[in-house]
């Protein structure tokens, strides 16, 4: 895995050097080059390795109950993974809650394997049970690649989470007065050279929601949606959202619901 990272990282380094040496008029060209580079390595998305680990972990007997996750119900019936992520978050009758993929997997780990949610919630990113979670996520979302985003908002709890998520999206706070809309509330903007999807609109939400979770070339890490949202809030300069907390679910419902009709291109590949 380490050996494999070197290639793309070196290529990115060269791109940055090229970009810095260019004149201002070349700014758009530089973003084009990054897009081109993404296409180049799309065939060998390093997420495949993480997803393969996830598949092993899905089938492996683990935890106090020494069981696999093969009977986990992600909404389409026990053990059905194909297309399941494209319809999440969703309301689950058995827990009486709206759950995203990660909180649902925590439910399965607890009920099937006896692994307590706090093992994931209290872990560091990409360590311990949260590393396991990332691998499982990579596996599940790969099985929704190319599927239509189809989140059912009809249940009253889903409708409510959508409304709460929208309120959270516009909520300004903290020392920099930022909200999600500061960066994602307008069309055609970018931060530095990074293009920003307008997440209020179907097209932008589909591009954003539909390309996460993703492998990040810049740090060689696979990031889940919980990880992505956590870092958005870090850069908003707010306090830290608790892993799997309601605000993360509500925002996910708002984003996925707005993205409905788009296509999942997961796992994504990011700078």
């Amino acid at each position: 895995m380490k050996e494999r990272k070197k290639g793309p990282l070196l290529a990115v380094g060269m791109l940055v050097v090229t970009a810095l040496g260019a004149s201002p008029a070349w700014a758009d060209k530089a973003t084009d080059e990054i897009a081109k580079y993404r296409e180049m390595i799309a065939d060998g998305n390093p997420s495949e390795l993480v997803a393969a680990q996830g598949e092993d972990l899905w089938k492996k007997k683990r935890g106090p109950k020494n069981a696999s996750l093969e009977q986990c119900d992600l909404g389409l019936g026990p053990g059905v993974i194909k297309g399941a992520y494209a319809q999440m978050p969703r309301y689950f009758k058995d827990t009486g809650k709206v759950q995203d993929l990660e909180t649902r997997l925590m439910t399965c780990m607890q009920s099937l394997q006896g692994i307590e949610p706090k093992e994931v919630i209290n872990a560091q990113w990409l360590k311990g049970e949260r590393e396991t979670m990332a691998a499982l996520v990579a596996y599940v979302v790969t099985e929704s690649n190319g599927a239509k985003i189809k989140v059912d908002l009809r249940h009253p709890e889903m409708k409510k989470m959508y409304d709460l998520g929208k309120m959270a999206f516009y909520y300004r706070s903290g020392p920099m007065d930022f909200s999600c809309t500061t960066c994602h509330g307008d069309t055609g903007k970018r931060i530095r050279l990074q293009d920003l999807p307008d997440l209020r609109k179907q097209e932008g939400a589909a591009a954003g929601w539909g390309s996460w979770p993703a492998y990040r070339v810049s740090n060689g890490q696979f990031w889940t949606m919980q990880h992505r949202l956590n870092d958005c809030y870090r850069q908003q300069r707010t306090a830290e959202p608790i892993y799997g907390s309601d605000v993360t679910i509500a925002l996910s419902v708002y984003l996925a619901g707005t993205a409905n009709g788009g296509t999942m291109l997961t796992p994504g590949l990011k700078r």
Partner: protein
Amino acid sequence: MKKITLAMGLFCAFPAAWAANDALYADFKAMMDSSFQSNGIAAKHRMYQLDFQKACSGEKDPPKKEMQAIEAAQLKTIRYPADGKYLGDWKEGEKIAISGRGLTWTDKTRFDNGGGCYNCHQLSHHEISYGTIGPSLLEYGKVRGSSDEIIKYTWGKIYNAKAYNACSNMPRNGDAEILTEQQMKHLMAYLFDPASPVNKK
């Protein structure tokens, strides 16, 4: 008489709608309260909104009158340099404009912050990695000159952008103690000094 009945009917209809929104808003507040935790310098109280932050958290900006009231209140927060000197060293200013660091839960101290200017603005002739959330400030001083009026306005804008546009995306660099007075002076020089690459090709 009929008109009055209709008006009464409408009047009575509103509180019901408000009650529904109030219930949702109460749930929203409870959700925000239970979903965040302090981490390092990013304490939980950051989730509690200032009045103008709340007013600017809708899909649309608040009515003009409310915007003007916010702007008037924010204008009063601006502190101009006591020594009357507005311009520092543009080279230091460039470093501050480029740095986007500070105030996150991975930062050790809440001081020592960057201005993050390039995240949103084009500034100099040679830096191509700039954002477009804010307007281009290329040749800022060259285009605008350096009258007392423009100098004072620019200082105020950096210190507290909400004094000029209540719901501006731009942070209150002075008022929220993101940058020091000295750092803001360096940024001013970056914008106004004829030798600064903002103005000189």
